[in-house]
């Protein structure tokens, strides 16, 4: 019998065994190592030891500007965005009990994108950019509501959800293109880069704006981890165990949408992270939400940071959006999942 670490209060109940703890520790160390590499790499290669020194010492050294103003906020934003998308995908996958669900496949990301492009094209001059995340989240929420309603036919089946999502992705994509075509070229370039999914030019303002969302939403989802675990057993069992299925399902969907929406607001539509990260996490830690959530968070964060690091170093002086690399890995992975599911 494994030693178990139990965290149980009136609101939270999470049980982690020693293997999970070790794995999470390894992931954390890996994340820090990746972050360090990402801080060192760039048009100007810095010695990692110097980077650590720079970060730990209080007075600014010679690389202070490069590290603390240019690279660090970008790495942190990348990590937060990846983590948010990963947890959003994890919740969705548990919710519809289908490994193919993720915010981008079923159209939540497209909804957020369309709303954000609308905001950039028509409202950016009159309204403060601080409202952009709200616009994105609103778009994500509206889209998921529409998908949910359209997929409803005496209950929602995962298959219908995905097919309808694919249809909506095409329609929303057309609307987004439409807005980009009609807006002036400067705006359309901005919107286009953003659509591909890039954390280019992130600054501390982005970090401080994004962080609160995660700090609220992630603990909230952990609080519900008990019911998520039960929901995977199917509706009748869940009801029998005294969970208010429809209400928790709604709350979970809302959390998932808000996570995806806020991530999309700051980094654009980085696809496939919400799909891949939870799957990798499932290979590494036991299938309970309490352990999957932190693992997915770390993995998703690493994915985006790595993709972004490759994007800004591989084709110097070009800065290729991180979304391109994530898709390059994500699409084959999706097909692999498809193959496995139907075998």
């Amino acid at each position, binding site marked *: 019998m494994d030693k178990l670490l139990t965290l149980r209060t009136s609101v939270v109940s999470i049980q982690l065994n020693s293997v999970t703890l070790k794995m999470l520790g390894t992931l954390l160390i890996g994340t820090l190592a990746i972050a360090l590499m990402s801080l060192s790499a760039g048009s100007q290669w810095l010695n990692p030891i110097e980077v650590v020194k720079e970060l730990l010492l209080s007075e600014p050294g010679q690389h202070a500007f490069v590290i603390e103003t240019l690279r660090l906020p970008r790495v942190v934003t990348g990590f937060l965005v990846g983590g948010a998308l990963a947890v959003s995908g994890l919740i969705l996958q548990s919710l519809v009990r289908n490994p*193919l669900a993720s915010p*981008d*496949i079923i159209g939540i990301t497209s909804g957020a994108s369309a709303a954000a492009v609308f905001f950039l094209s028509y409202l950016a001059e009159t309204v403060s950019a601080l409202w952009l995340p709200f616009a994105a989240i609103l778009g994500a929420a509206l889209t998921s509501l529409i998908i949910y309603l*359209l*997929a409803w*036919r005496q209950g929602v*089946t995962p*298959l*219908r959800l*995905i*097919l*309808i999502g*694919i*249809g*909506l*992705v*095409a*329609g929303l*994509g*057309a*609307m987004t*293109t*439409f807005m*980009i*075509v*009609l807006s002036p*070229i400067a705006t*359309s*370039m901005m919107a*286009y*880069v953003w*659509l*591909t999914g*890039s954390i280019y030019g992130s600054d501390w303002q982005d970090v401080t704006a994004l962080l609160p969302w995660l700090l609220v939403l992630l603990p909230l989802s952990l609080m519900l981890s008990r019911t998520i675990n039960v929901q995977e057993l199917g509706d009748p069992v869940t009801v029998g165990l005294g969970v208010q299925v429809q209400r928790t399902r709604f709350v979970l969907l809302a959390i998932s949408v808000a996570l995806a929406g806020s991530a999309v607001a700051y980094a654009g539509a980085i*696809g*496939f992270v919400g799909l891949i990260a939870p799957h990798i996490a499932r290979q590494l830690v036991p299938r309970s939400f309490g352990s999957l959530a932190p693992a997915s968070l770390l993995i998703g964060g690493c994915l985006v940071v790595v993709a972004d690091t490759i994007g800004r170093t591989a*084709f110097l002086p*070009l800065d*290729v*959006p991180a*979304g*391109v690399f994530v*898709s*390059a890995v*994500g*699409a*084959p992975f*999706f*097909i692999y999942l*498809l*193959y496995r599911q*139907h*075998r």
Partner: protein
Amino acid sequence: MMSSSVRSFQLLIAIIMLVVAFVASIVLGQTSIPLGTAFDAFTNYDANSIDHIILTTTRLSRALTAMFVGAGLAVAGALMQAMTRNPLASPGIFGVNAGALFAIVLCSTLFSIASLQDYIWIAFAGAGFAGVLVYGLGTIGRDGVTPVKIVLAGAAITALFVSFTQGLLVINQDGLDSILFWLAGSVAGRSLELVRPVLPFLFIALVASLFLGRHINILVSGEDVAKGLGQRTILIRLLMGLLVVGLAGSAVAIAGNIAFVGLIVPHIARALFGTDHRWLLPGCMLLGATLLLLADIAARFLIMPQEVPIGVMTALLGTPFFIYLARQTAVAQS
């Protein structure tokens, strides 16, 4: 069963509708041209009349482009739906459009190719690659081709190609403005000289598909039945695949990414003409051409003085339709 005289009558009506749409497409627009003047422009051309110049340069080529692209995409969709026996099949959904687009953007970025003749071959290559990839991926697994699997594979491949295309365009920002309208799908601004090299391909592929109608009827009755009747099914499938690539590839090469025409039109045509492909395919041709002409006319008037890209028009029309079909398919599956 509908008698052939009824069907001939329906086809005749479809032809009349197409002619009306074609004439409307020529005379309507920001400057509307009276019918008489339009007639004059062809019989009695006056180089000093602005109306005549507009007609023979922009309007005519635009109408012809829309007509051929619409017909090509619709027939490509009908062939794909017959080939995979999947109601959701169409070039857009299967990633064929995205593949052709990516190939074009890649080559124009890397090798700065700009002539339409070269675009055609590149688009064929991209369309063929994506089509084979999605079809291949849809067939892996024990249960063979299922509608849902192939749609999902198409979605993933589309996402991949779109992402690569976006990446290329972000790197090469100068190219974006010129290519953007085309990414959204457009039949405007293509002069007749530009389009002319592609039209023979489309025309030959369209005519060739008409000859396949009888064989396709046998094929859709099932692989075993078709083989039992002595059909070389592999050859027929190969021919259909080639036609799909030719039709969709050249449509994308001229007009960019126009979605959902290949999906909607075959369904409408099936409702009108029945499932006999000898009638269905010409029906798709006429309806597809008419639909795109009408969509193009609407695109001119919706937000005057600007224009809605026609790909956006068709996507907005097509999304509800796809969702309706998806609901039906998902019910049939479960």
